[in-house]
């Protein structure tokens, strides 16, 4: 793998402060805990996790919609902290976003041509004919027609709206697009259309994506590298192939086993495995203060898991995993997970 990251996160930590009515801090929620990863140029980094895992928070921090507590975000060699309070236009031009809900991400009182044209005026200073020409090009690039430009978002279906949002993100030829659950609200057939569009745009325009989603199947299809998040921690990182074929973290394994397959025979096998896992899981429901956050649900939980958070462990061939199952001897990582895990006790 050539090493040419367009964006890297170094120990990013984001927390939300809960204040009481006097404005005093009453509680701190650590949404993202010391997460590090890199997005390679022209590639897609998939960030998976369930609700509350902090995956969207990472996207917002990169887009500078919220301020991280500590840690670095480095885009193309430049530390985002050096920007200060205001974000320079040059950064806005290079990093764009497509959001989950195509219904609220387009301003209902602006026409489609205005929505797509605004970044053109702001960043490239285009106006009049030139701007109109570029808007039409963009509309056609995402599979819409020129006459759609004069309409309002309300006149479009979910899939078409997401195309408009993609056209807006593409308008200024960004180098990185943050796709935050960009296809989650779409129907299966439309979802496939939008995924194909995103992939073909990457081929033609060499754009990189941070693809944030809870849908493992979609993430696998679109990503080169995948990071798995659990309660603010990145628990596993690796190439899409490796993570799906040979998951090292028990949480990744559980996630993968939970995706239902549209094949009743295969799904029956998965169901059995799932129920087996659950039997163990329910025996270990305890809160952990210091240890691994997944310990209370982990089928392979050990004493050490409840006491100390496992450190990130490099995996052969790139990536990492944070799990005590692998920390005893790193060289064993090449063997499949099942051979080394202690057989869960049954009682």
């Amino acid at each position, binding site marked *: 793998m050539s090493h040419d990251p367009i964006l890297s996160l170094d120990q990013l930590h984001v927390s939300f402060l809960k204040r009481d009515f006097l404005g005093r801090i009453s509680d701190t929620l650590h949404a993202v805990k010391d997460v590090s990863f890199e997005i390679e140029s022209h590639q897609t980094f998939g960030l998976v996790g369930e609700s509350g895992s902090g995956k969207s928070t990472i996207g917002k921090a990169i887009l500078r919609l919220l301020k991280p507590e500590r840690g670095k975000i480095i885009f193309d060699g430049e530390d985002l902290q050096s920007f200060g309070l205001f974000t320079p236009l040059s950064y806005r031009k290079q990093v764009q976003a497509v959001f989950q809900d195509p219904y609220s991400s387009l301003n209902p009182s602006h026409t489609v041509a205005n929505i797509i044209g605004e970044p053109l005026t702001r960043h490239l200073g285009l106006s009049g004919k030139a701007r109109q020409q570029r808007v039409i090009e963009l509309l056609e690039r995402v599979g819409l027609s020129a006459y759609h430009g004069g309409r309002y978002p309300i006149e479009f279906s979910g899939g078409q709206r997401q195309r408009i949002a993609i056209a807006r993100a593409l308008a200024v030829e960004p180098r990185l697009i943050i796709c935050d659950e960009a296809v989650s609200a779409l129907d299966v057939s439309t979802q496939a259309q939008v995924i194909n569009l995103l992939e073909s745009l990457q081929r033609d325009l060499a754009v990189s994506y941070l693809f944030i989603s809870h849908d493992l*199947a979609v993430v696998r299809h679109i990503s080169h590298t995948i990071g798995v998040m659990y309660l603010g921690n990145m628990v596993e990182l690796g190439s899409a192939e490796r993570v799906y074929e040979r998951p090292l973290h028990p949480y990744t394994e559980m996630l993968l086993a939970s995706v239902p397959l549209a094949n009743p025979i295969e799904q029956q096998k998965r169901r059995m495995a799932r129920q087996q896992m659950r039997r163990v899981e329910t025996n270990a429901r305890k809160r952990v203060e210091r240890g691994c956050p997944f310990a209370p649900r982990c089928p392979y939980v050990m004493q050490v898991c409840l006491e100390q958070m496992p450190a990130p462990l490099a995996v052969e061939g790139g990536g990492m995993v944070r799990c005590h199952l692998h920390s005893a001897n790193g060289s064993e990582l090449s063997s499949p997970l099942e051979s080394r895990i202690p057989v869960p006790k049954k009682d």
Partner: protein
Amino acid sequence: MTGPTINVAQTPPAAEVISGRGRFVKRIIKQPATVLALVYVVAFVLIGIFADVLAPYDPMKQNFSAVLETPSLQYWLGTDSLGRDSLSRILHGARIAFWASSQAILIAVVLGVPLGLLSGYVGGWFDRILMGFNDILLSLPGLMVAFGIIAVIGASLSNAMIAIGIIFSTRYLRLTRGVVLAEREQLYIAAAQVTGVSIPRLLFSHILPNIASPLIVQTSVLFGAVILIESSLSFLGLGASVGIPSWGGMLNEARLDYARQPFLALPPGFAIMLTVLAFNLLGDGIQDALAGRESVTDNPRPPQPIPTVSVVGDVSPQHGDVADEPKKALVLQDLEVRFPSLNGEMTVVSGVNLHLNVGETVGLVGESGCGKSITAKALMGLIPPPGRIVAGSLKLNGQELFGSSRAQWQEIRGSRIAMIFQEPLSALDPTYKVGDQIAEPLRQHDHLSHKQALTRAIELLDLVGVPEPHRRIHDYPHQFSGGMAQRVVIARALSCEPDVLIADEPTTALDVTIQGQVLDLLRDLQAQFGMSMLFITHDLGVVADICDRAMVMYAGQIVESAPCESLMLHPKHPYTAALLGAMPQNQKRIGELANIRGQVPQPWNLPTGCRFHPRCTFAQELCSSQSVALSTVEVEHHVRCLRAEELQLELRQ
């Protein structure tokens, strides 16, 4: 193929999509009082501008030969003690009222709206300090502050209006800030920030147009209020200078001559009352029209009658082998549901047949807008008006349900047919403890006492796997996570041991690991209670997990129905095959995903012939002309496709 040359279906023709603005005008026209108020206000403004031209006399010109006259042809509204024409003075008074109010409102808007935008958008200390000041100003009576300011800077109408403008700006500030706070959560704001839009442009070009409606309503109401204050001040001699015709001043003069000419007070009195009334009515009317409300009397549609039902005989496909047919808990036949639209009624669901055997789980699959949720609602007798069931028969254990009265449905719902929904937290009432919510159907249907019902609620919560149920019955819904809340909803649905459970996307909003738990729970409970389940979902994986049989819906029709294995491994309808192909089933990153070109057609724009033919890769000429019936290709496998027998649909695995 370089780019995705996807054929995007056109949005419906412009004539069929009424823009928001068109709908707004339509709603306004439906309110006679608002139209009348609008006409009055327009007239008021025009009079204010053209008073010079319209007034028959100079309002200042005194005529001592005609003092305190009653209305006549020469002086339509009589004259005052100096012989000045009342009509002319009323018309010029309108001018004073209009300009003075405009001045005050303009100051209020210019001060209040930008500050409100900024306060709501920026938040933090700025917001807190500004709102503190605002609250103090709001708590002072407006008229008193006006007196105070006049006392300091001298009495003149202009000064008074500046004072009132400043006071009323607090109303705008508060309102604007409130709507901005709500609007700020919208994603388009984040999208604009990401685009690099500057803050002033974000506030005025992006947010302002979307919050304009409440501001317009506010302006209309405040206009009335300012006119009232202007009149009061002028009445007290603190507003328009003495002699200048203003309604308040005229009222004051009339007071002096009340004994000699009582009529003198009526014209300015009515002018003030009618004008304020008109502005208030207009504000209310605009608000109603924006909210989509229409006064009931204006709605020509009579209250919905009980759906007319044409009961169709038993025409189930496997009519022959009656002997060893499994017992059917629920049979729905030839369901047709219509909703009114601009061009007459549109059929949203048509010819839907389905049955649930006792203890069986049937999946109803389809994309959004295919009619699956409407079908589910019909099974619960919950088609939202103005929609109606025009045909069909629904039998629960042999008893016909369509045509039941409202009271009969209430008896059936919750006790014999129960339903669970997609969003568990919105299906529970946030103000009641969950124990009481589970107990409610038990008390209503099974007539248990409060204590008995709560005991049963604890048993049910334990059954659905909520830990420490005796403690948790006293908790409120927000204290439950999504997965646990769905367990509570399931416990409530099962409380009366229904024969049929309708599950409308019950796991869609849940995390994937929790989804597995809820599916396992439903499966266990079904075995335990022996109930039948209709499982509505868009996820074929979920269907494969829990269903015995599945039906695929497309554009209001069932297009394929078969046991799960047969349906997913050997689909016969091109739509089913395409749906299966479009799912990114943990596929490796190779090539494009198979997709279905175009989109689901809208119910007002259904294609002729087979409803799927414009998107179907196998469509032939016949497909677009001939409507297709559901035919049986194998035992229990029914397909609505002309080419079902000949097509060999390959599935990419």
